[in-house]
């Protein structure tokens, strides 16, 4: 086994991205995501890759989409205000089905808020921040090590499903330094987008039999096609046909929602006989776990369900939980965002409580413990 | 390619009858007909200057080597 090294979450994100094959980064600095840009600037040229600091976040994502279209795995990173600015082009990437990893190192909003403090309050924005109906994938790590592996996975999902993938981490994990054992090349699987074969007759938005998404050739190979944020047919050219629009958007949703079992990952902790379950994600799980350990010692039957994939949500699993347990508590660093999704899925079968805030103070295990006792009494 | 070898051709379906080619043809070769499309009315006068082709917004009139036609 390789040796553990101490590494910051934001650095692990860049290391993971490079491991996954990122060769292009464009963005605009913003606290607390800036280290991702800084390390990308340092490292990418060593890999023959490119870093560019753009004039703002809008062009930060636009350049990354352009690079990805041309055939290069790309990433952009930001925090709250920048994430808001990127929303229009997130919709563009979803519509044109361009693989892309978008990192949001969450801080406290709204607006400039508390720029140096941690939150998880951009969860719903990640799902609904751009206009119109569109599907996305979002994942959230809870440690430096998982930041690395999940970044690799984010790139794989982006390539496999031709979709923007949101990597939702936060100041707590992004700025924490923890030991990590970096995997060796080949140790983690790497997925590259499927390209048409040379000379193949190519229809840019047609899915070939047995495949999930349309093939996507790198530029320069001879497949000249058109990309557009307008509704387009299989040919890539715009069309106003309602039937076509319906078929295309249905396909875009299906590629994600028909594959939730592949896309969705989660962690279960002490769930076997749990009567109360904390549904949580990302850094907040680090507050929940010690609370559970302590409660278990005191004989309370409590467990944790940690969503690693936030969107699409682990709906099946949460629905199943609602059949099994007596109480669900959603723990998150906001005023109740994932709560909405969980409550919707639970359909009133068991009570759903919330614990959360976004005022710069992370949840304490003791608070969580106290709530559990209150709920269970 | 010699000018003499060029032939004045039309892609009539594409013509939107804007009249630009007619207006700027130095030798008044072209007219707009009653269908609101261009017609070559006076081919002999054509000096193959290509101004019509260059300024037709709809690629509806052009010159090409006769042999290619």
């Amino acid at each position, binding site marked *: 086994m390789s040796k553990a090294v101490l590494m910051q979450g934001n650095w692990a994100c860049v290391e993971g991205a490079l491991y996954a094959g990122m060769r292009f980064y464009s963005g605009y600095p913003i606290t607390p995501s800036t280290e991702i840009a800084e390390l990308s600037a340092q490292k990418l*040229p060593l890999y023959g890759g490119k870093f560019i600091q753009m*004039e703002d976040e809008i062009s930060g994502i*636009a350049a990354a*989409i*352009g690079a990805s279209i041309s055939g*290069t795995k790309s990433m952009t990173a930001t925090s709250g205000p920048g994430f808001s600015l990127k929303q229009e082009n997130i919709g563009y990437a979803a519509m044109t089905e361009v693989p892309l990893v978008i990192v949001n190192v969450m801080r406290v909003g709204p607006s400039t808020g508390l720029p140096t403090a941690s939150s998880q309050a951009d969860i719903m924005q990640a799902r609904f921040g751009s206009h119109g109906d569109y599907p996305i994938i979002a994942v959230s790590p809870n440690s430096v090590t998982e930041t690395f592996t999940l970044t690799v996975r984010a790139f794989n999902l982006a390539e496999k499903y031709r979709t923007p993938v949101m990597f939702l981490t936060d100041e707590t994990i992004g700025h924490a330094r923890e030991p990590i054992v970096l995997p060796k090349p080949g140790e983690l699987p790497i997925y590259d987008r499927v390209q048409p074969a040379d000379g193949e007759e190519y229809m840019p938005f047609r899915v070939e039999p047995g495949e999930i998404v349309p093939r996507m050739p790198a530029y320069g190979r001879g497949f000249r096609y058109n*990309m557009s944020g307008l509704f387009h047919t299989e040919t890539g050219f715009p069309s106003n046909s309602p039937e076509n629009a319906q078929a295309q958007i249905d396909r875009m949703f299906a590629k994600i929602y028909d594959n939730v079992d592949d896309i969705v990952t989660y962690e279960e902790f002490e769930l076997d006989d749990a009567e109360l379950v904390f549904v949580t994600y990302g850094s907040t799980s680090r507050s929940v776990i010690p609370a559970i350990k302590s409660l278990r010692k005191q004989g309370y039957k409590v467990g944790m369900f940690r969503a690693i994939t936030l969107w699409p949500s682990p709906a099946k699993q949460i629905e199943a939980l609602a059949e099994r347990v007596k109480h669900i508590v959603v723990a998150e660093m906001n005023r109740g965002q994932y709560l909405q999704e969980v409550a919707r899925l639970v359909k009133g079968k068991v009570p759903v409580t919330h614990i959360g805030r976004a005022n710069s103070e992370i949840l304490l295990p003791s608070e969580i413990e106290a709530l559990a006792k209150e709920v269970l009494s | 390619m010699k000018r003499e070898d060029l032939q004045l051709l039309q892609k009539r*379906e594409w013509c*939107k009858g804007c009249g630009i080619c007619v207006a700027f043809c130095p030798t008044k070769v072209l007219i707009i007909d009653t269908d609101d499309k261009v017609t070559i009315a006076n081919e002999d006068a054509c000096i193959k200057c290509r101004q019509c082709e260059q300024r037709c917004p709809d690629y509806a009139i052009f010159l090409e080597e006769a042999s290619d036609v």
Partner: protein
Amino acid sequence: MRSSQLVEKYFRTKNLPHIWCPGCSLGIATRSLVVAIDELGLDKNKTVIVSGIGCSSRAVGYLDFNTIHTTHGRALAFATGVKLANPELHVIVISGDGDASAIGGNHLIHAARRNIDLTLLIFNNNIYGMTGGQFSPTTPHAALGTTAPFGVVEQPFDLVKLAEGAGATYVARGTAFHVNPLVKYYKNAIEHKGFSMVETICICPTYYGRQNKSGTAVQMMHWLKDSFVLNTAYDKMPEEKRQGKHVYGEFVKKDLPEYVEEYVGIIERLKGEEDA
């Protein structure tokens, strides 16, 4: 009837005729670009044309290259990613005056400053065509637009000066009437190493023309012919003759380190250090 060999070679003819209005000069500018590309002998597979949103930006749908129809105003930013990720590509951006200089103004000045090897063609019809005739940053003072019912209160951009002030290393202006020089500027711009911009003065008979009583497309083309003068000729004109005249020509042509080349230089240097 078939269309011309030039058109068949470079256009997606199954998408033609295009949807631009009768007499709209966007078709002229688009053809001029194709002539320039043809004369330069660019490889269609290594040429990328990126546009934003607008009537002008619709051009990419008709052109048989790698084409990207992006979001309004952002074409240069997308193009920056394409070019930097893949330096062997020729990357050309087509943009309307609104797309390039209203919502997209920041990307214009930054691409110019960076001196990245992109060619920006602004099809400037002095109006927002696609959305139905609102004034744009290039609509002349006091002209009418649907959002300037009492005449435009603002001052317009001189796009040539703007690009120059931002640091562009090749800047030219042509018109949809003066096709031969236009093709030449397009060629020079594409061949230029660094950021190049060509403003093409276009006519929008439907919205600009109707609101401002500019007459038919033919009359507007006459106006282009009569009021635009080559810069070198203009400089020699006596003051009184300059009244009401506008200039076209090449305005900036200079050498500065090009962004992508400089960046690749760093990669090479680091590789050298590693190998050493």
